[in-house]
C-alpha cells in the first residue's frame, strides 16, 4: 500500500491494469448516475443504454459504414500526402543546415496558423470536393510532422556519422545507410502521433460542405437534437484513432527489435 504512493516506485502489473479499468468504470458510473437519475435533461445527456441502442441500430442498418469509409479515406489520403512530402523534407532539414535555414522559419510560422481558418480560402481555391477535405487534414498535420521529423534526424549522433566517413561512406551513403536507419524509429513514432492529430482535424474538415463522413453525421445529429448519435460518432472516431495507434505501435515493435535487450 505504502509503495503505491512512493514517487517512481514500480507496482505490480495486475494493480496497474486494474486501476485503469476502475477509472473507466468510474466515468461510466458518473455518466449513468447523471443520466438515469434524470439529474440532467436527456436532450443534453442521453443514457448509456440509449447510446448503445443507437450504435447498434446504426451498425445493423449499415449506414455508418459508408461514413466511416469516406472519413477514413479522407484522413488517410490527406495524411499520406503530408507524410510523403514531410518525411523527406524533414530529413533534409535535419541533416543539411542550408535546408534548415531555408525552410525552418517559414514552416515554424505557418504551423501556428490554425488549419481550420484556411477552410474558406481552400473552398475558394479548390471548391467543396474531396480534395478540400484532404487539404485541411494535410494543412493540419504537414507542418508539425515535418518539424518533428527534422528534430528526430537532428538527434542522430554525430559520432555515428563521423565513424561512417572513416569507414569509407560518401555523402549519399550517409543519408541512406546511416541517417535514415538511425532516425526510422523516431519517424514511425512521429507518424503515430501526427496520425492521431489527423483524426482530430476530420470533424473540422467535414463541418463545412460535406454530405457524408463521421463529421457530417455528428453535425447533422446536432441539428436534429440527437445527442446519442453525436456520442456514437465521437466514440467511433476515438476508437478508430486508438486502432491506428495500436497498428503503428505493433509496426514499431516488429520493425525495431534491435532497440530491445531481449531482441524479440
Amino acid at each position, binding site marked *: 500500500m505504502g509503495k503505491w504512493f512512493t514517487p517512481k516506485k514500480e507496482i505490480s502489473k495486475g494493480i496497474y491494469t486494474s486501476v485503469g479499468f476502475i477509472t473507466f468504470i468510474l466515468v461510466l458510473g458518473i455518466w449513468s448516475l447523471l443520466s438515469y437519475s434524470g439529474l440532467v435533461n436527456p436532450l443534453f445527456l442521453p443514457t448509456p443504454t440509449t447510446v448503445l441502442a443507437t450504435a447498434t441500430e446504426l451498425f445493423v442498418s449499415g449506414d455508418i459504414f459508408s461514413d466511416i469509409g469516406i472519413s477514413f479515406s479522407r484522413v488517410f489520403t490527406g495524411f499520406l500526402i503530408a507524410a510523403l512530402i514531410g518525411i523527406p523534407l524533414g530529413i533534409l532539414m535535419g541533416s543539411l543546415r542550408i535546408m534548415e535555414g531555408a525552410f525552418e522559419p517559414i514552416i515554424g510560422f505557418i504551423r501556428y496558423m490554425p488549419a481550420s481558418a484556411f477552410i474558406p480560402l481552400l473552398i475558394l481555391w479548390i471548391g467543396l470536393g474531396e480534395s478540400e477535405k484532404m487539404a485541411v487534414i494535410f494543412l493540419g498535420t504537414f507542418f508539425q510532422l515535418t518539424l518533428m521529423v527534422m528534430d528526430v534526424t537532428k538527434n542522430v*549522433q554525430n559520432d555515428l556519422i*563521423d565513424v561512417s*566517413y*572513416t*569507414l569509407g561512406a560518401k555523402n549519399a551513403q550517409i543519408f541512406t545507410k546511416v541517417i535514415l536507419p538511425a532516425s526510422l524509429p523516431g519517424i514511425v513514432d512521429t507518424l503515430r502521433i501526427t496520425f492521431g492529430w489527423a483524426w482530430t482535424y476530420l470533424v473540422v474538415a467535414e463541418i463545412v460542405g460535406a454530405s457524408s463522413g463521421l463529421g457530417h453525421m455528428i453535425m447533422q445529429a446536432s441539428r436534429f437534437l440527437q445527442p446519442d448519435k453525436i456520442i456514437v460518432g465521437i466514440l467511433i472516431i476515438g476508437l478508430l484513432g486508438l486502432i491506428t495507434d495500436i497498428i503503428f505501435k505493433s509496426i514499431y515493435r516488429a520493425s525495431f527489435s534491435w532497440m530491445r535487450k531481449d531482441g524479440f
Partner: protein
Amino acid sequence: MVFKMVSQKLDTNTVLNNKEIVIPKIITPKLEIKDVGKIFKTKSGETVALEKTSFTVKDGEFVTILGPSGCGKSTILRIVAGLEESNSGKVLLDGQEINGPGPDRGMVFQSYTLFPWLNVKDNITFGLKLKGVNQKERDDLARHYLQLIGLEGFEKHYPIQLSGGMKQRVAIARALANDPKILLMDEPFGALDAQTRTIMQEVLLKAWEDSKKTILFITHDVDESIFLADSVYVMTARPGRLKKKIPITLDRPREYSMKSTVEFGNYKEELLSLIREESLKSIK
C-alpha cells in the same frame, strides 16, 4: 644540423664507393604531421587549441599521445582523420597529403559508435560492404576478426545486448576489417571501468600484433600510454603542443603483470611528473 649534413655526405660516399648498392634506402614515415595548428573562433576572440605541431609515426609503430584534458589531443586525431580542418600545416599519409576523411584512416571513438540497427557481424562488415567486397570474403573476414577480439558466437547480437567493453571490441574489429593504413583511436577505453580497461588493452595489443597496423592512440591514462606504446608523446596544457617524446623499450609481447615492474615504474614516474605540471596549469 652540421652533424646531419656530414652524415649525409658520408652516406653518399658509401653509395658512390660501393657500386653494388646504388639506391640509398629512403625511409618515408607512415604518417607525417607538419606544422599542424588549430584555432577556434569564439565570441571572446580566438583560442589557440593546438599550436603548430610536427611529428612522425613509423610504419607499424604504436604511438600514444598523453595529455591533460582539453589540451587538443583529440583535435590532432580528428585532423588526421580528416573530420576537422587545420588552420595551418598538412598531414601526409604514405607521402600523400590527406584531404577529408577516408577509409585509409580507420577510427575508434570514446563514445559507442556501433550502428545499433545492425548486428555485430554487419557492423564489422559495414565498410567492406561499402567497398563492394563479396559476401564470402566478408564472412571470412568477419569470422577472423570476431575470433581475434574473442567474440565468436556473438555475430547475431545487436549492440544493445553487449557490454561497453564488448562494444569497443567490435568497434576495433570493424575498423581493422576495413584494412586501413593507420588506426586512429580517441580514448577508446575512456568510458570503461578499470578492470575492463586492462583487459581491453591486452585485446588491442593482440589485435595490433596480428594486423601489424600503425596505431595513433590518444589517452589521458599514464599506465595505458606506457603499456601500449612504442613511443609516448606528452602534450602540454592548452594551447596544446608536444612537450616530449619518450620511447618505451619494454619487451613485447606485453602482459598486464609488466605494470608492476621497476622499469614500468620508472617510465610512470617520469611521465607522471611531466603530465602533473601540465594538469596543474590546465586547472588554474
